[in-house]
């Protein structure tokens, strides 16, 4: 396939993926908005008012970047894992495997499908958050860059999960037992600086910490990164490193046929 044909094929996969999650918008776009609204009401309005300030910000303002990031992460991941595993399960992935499509186009197509949903949900959650909190973005390009990279990374994670999964149970194990705890312990609801040792040090091994705090840095202009002695470049470098690692593994698995070829 020449480059034009590859781009057409890529556009087809992305269009199909976007069409898929828009077709079932009641399952894909509305629940995150409702969930975030509940977070704002319960943790922001009811409990948050008793917590007081988190640094220089209201607890609600502090939470907003974390909640946006949480929605982006979980939706990017779940879009790819459920869509690709669904295709494996129904054998409709064969539609792609019999074509001349290079494996990297398949991977990019699915990842961009996940990114599209992640960013769309991120935008919806941002709009919802405006009803509850004042949101002033300090650094727009950085905010978009971080949220895009994070969405790419977790779309790749979803793709890897789908490749390994052999049953529907397998696609819920990682989100429930790995992803969700990492998100909740990644500084969405609290500042890592509040933790004592050894939990503070252990938290540094959580990659989501770097994403949430990079995004918070872009939105609020401050984050835990400085107090932890980590520069923004290192945090973004970590995200890029994991993207490179996950894409290499995913491509290697696709090339060897793991999970999709007999």
């Amino acid at each position: 396939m020449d480059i034009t044909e590859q781009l057409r094929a890529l556009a087809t996969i992305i269009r199909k993926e976007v069409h898929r999650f828009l077709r079932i918008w009641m399952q894909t776009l509305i629940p995150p908005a409702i969930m975030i609204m509940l977070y704002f009401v319960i943790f922001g309005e009811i409990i948050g008012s008793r917590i007081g300030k988190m640094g220089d910000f209201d607890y609600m303002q502090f939470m907003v970047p974390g909640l946006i990031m949480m929605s982006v992460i979980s939706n990017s991941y779940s879009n790819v894992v459920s869509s690709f595993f669904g295709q494996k399960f129904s054998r409709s992935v064969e539609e792609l495997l019999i074509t001349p499509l290079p494996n990297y186009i398949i991977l990019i197509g699915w990842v961009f499908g996940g990114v599209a949903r992640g960013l769309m949900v991120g935008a919806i959650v941002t709009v919802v958050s405006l009803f509850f909190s004042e949101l002033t973005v300090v650094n727009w390009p950085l905010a978009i860059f971080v949220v895009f990279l994070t969405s790419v990374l977790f779309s790749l994670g979803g793709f890897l999960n789908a490749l390994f999964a052999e049953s529907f149970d397998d696609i819920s194990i990682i989100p429930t037992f790995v992803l969700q705890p990492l998100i909740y312990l990644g500084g969405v609801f609290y500042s890592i600086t509040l933790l004592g040792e050894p939990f503070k040090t252990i938290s540094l091994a959580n990659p989501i910490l770097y994403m949430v705090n990079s995004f918070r840095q872009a939105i609020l202009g401050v984050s835990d990164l400085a107090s932890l002695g980590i520069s923004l470049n290192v945090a973004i470098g970590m995200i890029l490193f994991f993207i490179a690692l996950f894409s290499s593994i995913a491509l290697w698995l696709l090339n060897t046929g793991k999970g999709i070829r007999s």
Partner: protein
Amino acid sequence: MSALLIKNLKKVYQGGLEALKGIDLEVEKGDFFALLGPNGAGKSTTIGIISSLVTKSSGKVEILGIDIDDNHSLAKKKLGVVGQEVNFNQFEKVGDIIRNQAGYYGLSFKEARENTKFYMKKLDIWDKRNEQARKLSGGMKRRIMVAKALVNKPELLILDEPTAGVDIELRRSLWDFLTEINHSGTSIILTTHYLEEAERLCRNIAIIDNGEIVENTSMQELLTRLEVETFVFDLEEDINSLPSIADYELKIENPRKISVTIKKGQGLNEIFSLLSNSGIKIASMRNETGRLEELFLGLVEPTIKETEHGYH
């Protein structure tokens, strides 16, 4: 140039099952070729390897002269595959399913739209283009599969049991359609359990059994090997007994139906006149089983019996 060339193809699955034991196969360009065999013989594994759904253990596969290991992308551009089972997202609209398939082959939007329309009209599913595929009958889904496999205008089309479970009307219309596209230059490889279908459509045939090719010849040559053939005659009037006719084996199936076994070299004209002279009027006739079926059973019967007894 061959449409398909397979040399010493082997496949051993994880767990040690040897599905293909080094098969050789050549399908000429423009051919309508039957690949037959009992369940588990290795047909679907062979097709899976050609279409890259199954990874081969060793051997060589060339599609239109292109080695799938050397130029996998170009080889697959020339290939269309109708799988055994429905393998598209049934929640999508029929038109989208076929147009997306064209997109995966890198066709431009205009070309994809035109090809989609052309094959959907040819297969009589154009008026279903905006319906969700899951709402359609099994026969309609089969047509979607065929349209999907053709939308990139492949030079080699492989059909893995395309008419399984579809009604007679659709089966016959698919036969006509496949014959038409074969005449227009598309090479076709067909696997089917309907041996009548293979006999009617295909010029050449290979029979695979237990991972090995046990027969590979022209349909005509294979059929000439029949030693005996049994015909069923429906009669215009009831009969109670049969006349004694030398050299023919006759049997009353019911008062209105008799069967006659004819040996190689014996003609039908003679038996017609002998029966007519005995006052038996024939209303219609047919083969008791398809001719190919008799040969097929002779070639693969040991495997079928073993399978029935659970040895496999």
